[in-house]
């Protein structure tokens, strides 16, 4: 049959924004910060290995303290994992507010450019208690979760103040306690989950792979 094939429009990819909100306070010095650095690298490698996720995932990296945008939103191929250095206090409240604002800004960029996107993920990894007021930030997280604006995951490194972290985390998604410094398994899980989220239409609920790297605290 002399009919050609339908030609496709080259539309921009749907995006899946991810913010890594990483505690680099002084108490992370040593094995913890080294393991965290490895984990971020592994996250990149794993996402890159999946063609569909590599096109969708956009990552931004914020560290605290002090609160610093180490990497603004970028596609995974353009993402060069930095070498994080542990130093300073734990302004977690400020860091969370910063991340939420950063996300709102990114959504605006998507809207302006007619880019569709998936529900964003914010991943907080910390070993300590906040050294600044965090109540307002916690309220924003909880409201955002109720409005289904994003998914907020909090991960506690062993020794963290779980009581405060439980008050910050969304009610339906309590903090997870990392086994030892197993950042490797955590970031592999994160990349696996992102692959699922960035893959086509899944309705509201995404079946996430089981958490094998930590303990869910209820």
């Amino acid at each position, binding site marked *: 049959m002399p009919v050609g*094939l339908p030609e496709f*429009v080259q539309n921009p990819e749907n995006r899946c924004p991810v913010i890594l909100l990483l505690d680099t306070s002084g108490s992370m010095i040593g094995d913890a910060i080294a393991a965290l650095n490895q984990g971020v690298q592994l996250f990149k490698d794993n996402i890159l290995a999946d063609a569909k996720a590599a096109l969708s995932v956009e990552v931004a990296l914020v560290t605290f303290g002090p609160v610093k945008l180490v990497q603004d939103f970028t596609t995974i191929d353009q993402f060069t994992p930095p070498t994080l250095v542990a130093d300073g206090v734990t302004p977690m409240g400020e860091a969370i507010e910063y991340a939420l604002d950063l996300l709102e800004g990114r959504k605006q960029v998507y809207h302006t450019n007619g880019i569709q*996107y998936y529900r964003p993920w914010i991943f907080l990894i910390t070993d300590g208690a906040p050294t600044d007021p965090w109540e307002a930030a916690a309220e924003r997280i909880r409201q955002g979760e109720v409005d289904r604006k994003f998914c907020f995951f909090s991960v506690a490194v062993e020794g963290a103040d779980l009581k405060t972290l439980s008050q910050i985390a969304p009610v339906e998604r309590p903090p997870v306690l990392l086994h030892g410094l197993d950042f490797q398994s955590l970031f592999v899980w994160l990349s696996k989950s992102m692959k699922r989220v960035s893959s086509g*239409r899944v*309705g509201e609920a995404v079946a996430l792979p089981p958490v094998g790297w930590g303990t869910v605290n209820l």
Partner: protein
Amino acid sequence: MGWQALSRSAIGTRHQSHHLPCQDAGGYRTIGNLLIGAIADGAGSAPHSALGATLAVESTLNYLDSLEQWLQPGQPQWPTLERAPSLQQAQRLFQRTAHHVRAALQQTAEQNGYGLEELACTLLAVVATPHWLAAMQIGDGFIVTSTAQETYQLLFQPAKGEFANQTTFITSPTAFEDLEVITIDSPPQFICAATDAFERLALHLPQWKPHAPFFNPLTEYLAETLDPETDDEYIVNFLSSDYLNKQTDDDKTLLLCRYVS
């Protein structure tokens, strides 16, 4: 000559690799000069959405097929009407259709011990005569038509939530409010209904404008084919081609119709 039509679905590569069934369904019937067609895309998050989509299409076609249910007593049959029904009439027709479909889904859910949401799927349907067409949509996916007056018109913008993977389903609490209906009072020449896998390939974003080079070959294929049902190789090959699978890993359904006067 009448209507030429074809509906085909192909499983997405993601569903294949996860050992999931194809959760799309599509179908049509011609009754004299009347064409009724429907497609449905089962929600990936719903465990029995493949069953839901199949059932939704079947029960839509069955309901629309039983013409007397949506005819005013004493009026001529709709297919012979030269003017399109009013928008209100079409809305009434499709509201009843949607209620009927949901009742069928509810019944099947109860029989199998499922929740209604476990059968979640979108639903797009079209009723076309040589003179006019009427269509409905719940959720995403699209219907594009050509008439003598206008080439490649998108009937409804796919329903999306804030996120690319959110939409409304026939099982959603807001399904009947979100039901969109249109009537086109002009002879339809080409109709293409497609599930959301094709949205980003066939429509220019963010304006949602149909991309003619996507639809032209489909129109040509129908024009060169006497009986699409038996001569379906072109569409079947396209739906399972690497060429298409490189662009989408989702299930794919196309319903194509052409009226030959």
